[in-house]
């Protein structure tokens, strides 16, 4: 079965200001050879720390940015080859919800007209039916009919995010790219919005690419996970597998860094990364995780050389995943 969305070797290099852009050299490798797929009606979680390329990936899929190279297929069709009428159809089928609900809404546009805008632009709903459709959408995302003529500043963060979701739903998309949709919200409101997104998926069969840095939210929400670090995917797999038996040293470190809301939790087996994220303009050669990898330092010289000489690939992008688990277990259980 063809996946709904298939991304292969997607790459985006931004020129750096100082040296100018040299293809293949220099530049910021914001997204560097990323591959994943999303099945119809399913959710793929894209996680990683800030600057690792999550939003850039989302913007490439929305065609808000041109990729440097790589392929994106929706239902098997390569989007780089779409003609302009087909591109409009693509833009109907793939929608986006943003992190900051305030900045994605026009402060001078009432909530009703914000939701109506995509309907009017695509001209598929008969003019008379627009208002009814907007009311229907508002009802679906839990906004009251009297909210129709109100303005964004009168709304809380959670309500604004509902407006953003109603807007994304207006054209019955097949895929919604959610870029940190609940990161700016308080936990109790976060739970309201997550439940709403789940209900919508159950009712409409829409697929999500769910971008987040909060691992517990993603674990709750996603069927499959891609863990990114410095523009590359480190680990890719089904959610229960990745969270239950993570194999990449970065995934393990990321999971053990999440503060556990349980004072009695066992904190002995923790992995602590040293140092900060390297600059994406100057990532380590070979494996990009090398400079912080707790396994790398324990390897014998020959294995260690492999880390810097060759870029690991595959669903678990580590040359030494076979010994990583054991090494991490012995170093951390002090």
């Amino acid at each position, binding site marked *: 079965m063809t996946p709904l969305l298939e991304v292969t070797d997607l790459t985006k290099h931004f020129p750096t200001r100082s040296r100018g852009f040299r293809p293949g050299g220099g530049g910021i490798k914001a997204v560097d050879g990323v591959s994943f797929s999303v099945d119809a009606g399913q959710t793929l979680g894209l996680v990683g*720390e*800030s600057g690792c390329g999550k939003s850039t990936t989302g913007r490439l899929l929305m065609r808000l940015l041109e990729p440097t190279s790589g392929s994106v297929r929706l239902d098997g069709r390569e989007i780089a080859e779409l003609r302009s009428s087909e591109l409009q159809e693509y833009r109907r089928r793939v929608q986006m919800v943003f992190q900051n609900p305030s900045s994605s809404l026009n402060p001078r546009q009432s909530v009703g007209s914000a939701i109506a805008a995509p309907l009017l632009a695509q001209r598929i709903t008969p003019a008379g039916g627009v208002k009814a459709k907007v009311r229907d959408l508002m009802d679906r995302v839990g906004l009251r009919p009297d909210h129709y003529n109100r303005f964004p500043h009168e709304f*809380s*963060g*959670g309500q604004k995010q509902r407006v953003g979701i109603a807007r994304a739903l207006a054209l019955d998309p097949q895929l919604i790219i959610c870029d940190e949709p609940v990161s700016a919200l*308080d*936990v*109790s*409101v*976060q*739970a*309201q919005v*997550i*439940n709403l997104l*789940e209900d919508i998926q159950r009712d409409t069969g829409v697929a999500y690419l769910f971008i987040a*840095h909060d*691992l*517990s*939210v993603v*674990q*709750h929400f996603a069927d499959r996970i891609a863990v990114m670090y410095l523009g590359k995917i480190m680990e890719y797999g089904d959610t*229960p597998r990745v*969270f239950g038996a993570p194999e990449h040293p970065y995934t393990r*470190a*990321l*999971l*053990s*860094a*999440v*503060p*556990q*809301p*349980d*004072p*009695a*939790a066992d*904190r002995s087996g*923790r992995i*602590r*990364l*040293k140092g*900060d*994220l390297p600059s994406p303009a100057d990532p380590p050669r070979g494996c990009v995780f090398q400079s*912080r990898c707790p396994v790398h330092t324990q390897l014998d010289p020959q294995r260690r050389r492999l880390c810097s000489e060759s870029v690991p690939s595959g669903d678990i992008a580590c040359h030494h995943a076979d010994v990583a688990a054991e090494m991490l277990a012995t170093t951390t259980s002090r």
Partner: protein
Amino acid sequence: MTTPEAAAPMLAIRDLRVSFPTDDGVVHAVNGMDLTLARGETVGIVGESGSGKTVTSQALMGLLKDTAAEVTGQILLDGQDLNTLTETRMRAYRGKKIAMIFQDPLSAMHPFYPVGAQIAEAYRVHNDVSKKAAAQVAVDMLGRVGIPDPKRRCAAYPHEFSGGMRQRAMIAMALVCEPELLIADEPTTALDVTVQAQILDLLNELQDETGTSVILVTHDLGVVAEVCHQVVVMYGGECVEQATVAKLFEDPRHPYTQGLLASMPSLAQRSERLNPIPGFPPSLLALPNGCLFADRCPKTHLVPDDACGTRRPTLTGLDGHPSRCHLETLQPTGEVAR
């Protein structure tokens, strides 16, 4: 994470209230904040956005003196009520006895002075030493917060540091005068999880070394469980519950705390469905007469005579685990004590 024994409360906040006159009316940002903190302990203040966490910290630091804000209640530090001090007298406390670190270190540091010079200056405000001696203190301090090659790094400007290093530098600046109380307002919220873990470990280590008491403001109950001894939960500018960390997670008493804990997705257990608290926090412009949580509370039916809607509960409860809820005072007869 051991609770020091026989700890006399070094800080006691009694019925702190802060309001701001605005064009829309009076904003009641803090409406009854109570907290006790023993020497060497860490207390977490948790609550949703707008619940009054930052305003409480500002009041403690005396940053609301000489502003339009009205601050009432007591802030007793070693028995001295800071709220009665003038701005001039408060200056002797700020930085020396109480220091603060913020979510965004850039806003707290001067962009055009080297990091080392700023730490040295913070030291010289309260210590009569030569510039040279203060510079050495700054180098030592940067080393203690885990900045590699501190001597060279002292000459760097804040923007040359990464987010995690800046937060370390700010911690160095706050701790350089060995304050008795450190207020950290969302110190790791802007950081990535792996760096957040480093900074929380650092705070824990420094506290073990120095015995400083810490107030950690956060919206993340996970962070609280990692580093705090005590927790205060805020809602609508009120302290609604205070407990040891173990008790709060084991036996949350206030319906808001219970709702908050139930609404969190957990890494440890994948649940099928999250349980949000319905509705929104109250408007701070027109507070209801009754309980501030009443219109979202699932337990109002357990309290007779519509007490939830008509009377504001007080902070009551046994075993040093008070909760601001009428259920705490419910008599066997089913009546609410007045």
